């Protein structure tokens, strides 16, 4: 499957990794898990704010619940962004060419993440700070959060499309734009699984949030008691976990086989078992009054995240292993060739020095303009100046006419020219030429006066 004519093998960045690979992988997994927890809280939180606020049209207490959740998003979304920098950094170090390739292929959608997230964040602030002002214009107020939620629902798709595409270099050739990459198998199941996880994580966060002893529920809500809020939070968790398990299974079955190994299956199986465990206790806490299994569920979900994150990393590793070998070989091959060419060019340069000296000493060059002067002129001036006709600037013959017998003025002009002619662009200065080079160039230019010249 791998040895195909259409699978590109780019070159790796020829610099060593800054840390041992295992450590970078570890940092990638850990920092990504931290990032994704807050992303879940941000996406799930906004989604639930919208849901609660719509319910709040009929029951005032749900509106209060929406407000309470909305307040937490400010913190969670800021942490989500800042915690996202480290995984971005790590993936840039570990898989630059895969990541950059998928970025480039979905370029427009990828860069749109930035303005979209900015708009979503500003909408969130607008929503939060106009709670009182817009309390008599609920539909408008709900529209603001709905827009933010719509953006938040779209952005994970771009991310998932990218991290999915980077694992399949054999697909790159078939991708023209984001939409094609979006349609690769496995993107949508993973997306729905992600949404389930967002609800589950936010649900369990709300269980904790409402169970805090210092949280004055009686002051905030008019009819909701602590037990009601516990029920709502566990219902969200149970629903989220069920979604997550359902789509997790679909992800497993649609996963392209190339990265699957017993290790991946083992990790995913164990992760799935933990999730089932969490679901069971979440359901128990939901149906039994006064009973809560918060700790068990949190531990199981954290364990799930570590195992699942590791299984994804292992899958990526397996999927890219063969290709990375080819990349390393091609890079080594290129570095060797480049070195060869470099040494060859250097030795050529050294051997060519005596040659040019010999040319200078050749007797016939005394009569015509010196070949060194011509060489220097070719290098610096010929791109814009021809002997007898205008190119970019005026022809040499004109210069000769102007500066005849005034070599120093010509030198001065070359070092720092002004603008004389309205119909031509200004000449750049050449302060970097040495005195010898200036001498040669000016001699060459003024020698055009000699009638023996062509």
């Amino acid at each position, binding site marked *: 499957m791998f040895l195909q004519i259409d699978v590109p*093998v780019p070159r790796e960045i020829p610099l060593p990794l800054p*840390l041992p690979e295992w450590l970078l992988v570890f940092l990638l997994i850990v920092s990504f898990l931290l990032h994704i927890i807050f992303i879940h809280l941000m996406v799930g939180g906004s989604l639930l704010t919208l849901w609660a606020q719509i319910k709040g049209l009929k029951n005032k207490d749900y509106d209060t619940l929406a407000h309470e959740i909305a307040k937490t998003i400010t913190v969670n979304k800021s942490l989500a962004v*800042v915690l996202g920098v480290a995984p971005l950094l790590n993936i840039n170090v570990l898989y630059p060419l895969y990541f*950059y390739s998928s*970025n480039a292929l979905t370029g427009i959608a990828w860069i749109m993440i*930035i303005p979209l997230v900015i708009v979503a964040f500003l909408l969130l602030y607008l929503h939060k700070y106009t709670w009182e002002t817009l309390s008599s214009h609920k539909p408008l107020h709900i529209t603001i959060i709905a827009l933010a939620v719509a953006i938040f629902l779209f952005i994970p798709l771009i991310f998932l499309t990218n991290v999915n595409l980077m694992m399949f270099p054999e697909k790159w050739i078939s991708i023209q734009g984001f939409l094609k990459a979006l349609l690769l198998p496995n993107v949508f199941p993973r997306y729905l699984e992600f949404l389930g996880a967002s609800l589950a994580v936010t649900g369990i966060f709300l269980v904790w949030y409402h169970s805090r002893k210092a949280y004055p529920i009686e002051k905030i809500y008019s009819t909701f008691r602590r037990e009601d809020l516990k029920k709502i939070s566990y219902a969200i968790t149970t629903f989220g976990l069920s979604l997550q398990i359902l789509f997790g299974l679909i992800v497993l079955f649609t996963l392209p086989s190339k990265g699957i190994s017993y290790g991946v299956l083992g990790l995913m199986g164990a992760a799935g078992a933990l999730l089932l465990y969490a679901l069971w206790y979440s359901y128990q806490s939901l149906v039994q009054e006064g009973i809560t299994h918060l700790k068990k569920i949190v531990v199981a979900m954290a364990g799930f995240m570590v195992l699942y994150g590791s299984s994804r990393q292992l899958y990526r590793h397996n999927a890219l292993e063969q290709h990375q070998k080819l990349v390393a070989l091609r890079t080594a091959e290129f570095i060797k060739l480049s070195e060869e060419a470099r040494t060859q060019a250097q030795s050529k340069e050294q051997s060519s020095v005596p040659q040019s000296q010999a040319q200078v000493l050749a007797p016939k060059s005394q009569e015509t303009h010196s070949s060194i002067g011509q060489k220097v002129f070719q290098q610096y001036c010929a791109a814009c100046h021809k002997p007898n006709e205008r190119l970019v600037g005026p022809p040499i013959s004109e210069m000769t006419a102007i500066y005849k017998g005034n070599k120093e003025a010509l030198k001065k002009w070359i070092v720092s020219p002004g603008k004389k002619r309205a119909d031509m662009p200004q000449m750049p200065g050449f302060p970097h030429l040495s005195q010898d080079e200036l001498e040669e160039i000016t001699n060459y230019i003024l020698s055009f006066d000699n009638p023996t010249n062509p």
Partner: protein
Amino acid sequence: MFHLDWLNDRFLIAVIAILHVFVNHSLAVGFIPYITWLEQKGVIRAGENQITDSAWDDIIYKKMRVAFILTTSLGAMSGVGIWFSAALVSPSSIGSLIRVFFLGWFIEWLVFITEVILILIYYLTWKAANTSLRSKVRHIKFGWYLSLASWLTMAIIVGILGFMMDPGNWNADKTLLNGFFNPIYLPQLLFRTPTAMITAGVVGLTLATIFAKKHSEIRAQLIKYTGQWILFWTPLAIAGAVYYWNVMPAAMKANMSIAVGTQEFVQYYELLKYFILGAAFVSVLVGIISILRPWKVSFSFAAPAFLAIFAFLGIFERVREFIRKPYIIGGYMYSNLLREEDYPLYKREGILKFMTYTSVTEITQENKIEAGREVFMATCSRCHTAHQNGINSIVYVFERMYGSDKPLDEGSMAAYISNMHNARTYMPPFPGNDKELEALVAYIKHLQQTGEALPGAQTAGIKVNPHHSALSVARRISNTSSQQPLTLNK
């Protein structure tokens, strides 16, 4: 390769980066100490039995809210945006820099987390802290910690930016510290710090005219303090600017291997001098008027000063970017993303052969235009657009030289391109061989005639160089390894 044929790839990074600098300097690095200082003034202003002057405190809080909302959305995301856009436009350079500066960036990230947590604490606990003097004092302390953290994030990133302009002796010894303490690090930091303070002051002034009631005592006092703040930092900013202005040519000399002297740079450089003078004058003027005639300061007075200071920051960043050229990483990688040390190979065998994504490797008379397009993508597209109306379009730059009224001459363009780096020292040398040069100029002429655009990989997808497909790499390796095994690079 990702390519924006109208906007220009580099322009994309520039827009995001300048936006980030605006927000970061004026609303974080400079603004937090300004706000904390004013919060402290509120406590001093308070009466006997008060913790703080609550009307005053409320206005300062409102100012902070603006900073909080904008830094945590626009500021944070435009920072991430620099990463995103650089990875799209300039993958090999950002990839290399991350490998060298990984630890620096990792530390930057830790400081950054601290900064975000502190700003959340500082802003979100503001009102709650007003219940006792002890908690208010602690809150003000948090403000100072946050100021320090904001400044540190800038101090680290300036090291990384400074390195890209002038690697010092990094090329000989590729280590982090070496790159960090490069010759323009200190001048840049000494210039940026007071400049951030001044921009924050000007923003603060503008906000004061919005939030504080007209003709109130609070407003006059607030404007007066802000004037003092601006005046205090102005001489430091001027000194920093002069220092920086003086080391820039030396840094550029080290970078370019030939001396200063491109016309564009000199123009910008001269312009910058007037901008420094102008900005200094504006901030002194604003400072003095705010102190002597605070009741005269209105929104319509503050806003133009606000715009002037930002124009200055913008032009400064433009010059800073420009002095990097022709390199993107001084002495190591040109702005076309090709490493200097690979040039002999490209010159000898041509560049297309080594491109991973190209439809042409052998140039013939029939595929010349297509080959030219691939050469353009590989060597010019990071800075030039193909479409005639694009920013810095290749046809435009040649027509500016040869005149737009006549067809471009291939021979002249070829002669120009092979020597351009000698005359226009901000241009990297053309990396390809003669045949590729021929194809390139044929393509440029074709562009002038047809007005064709060049789509990037984000819409057109990729074509794989058959020479570098998995199949041929694997075959090639198995052939050579039977004779002499290639060692893996890892």
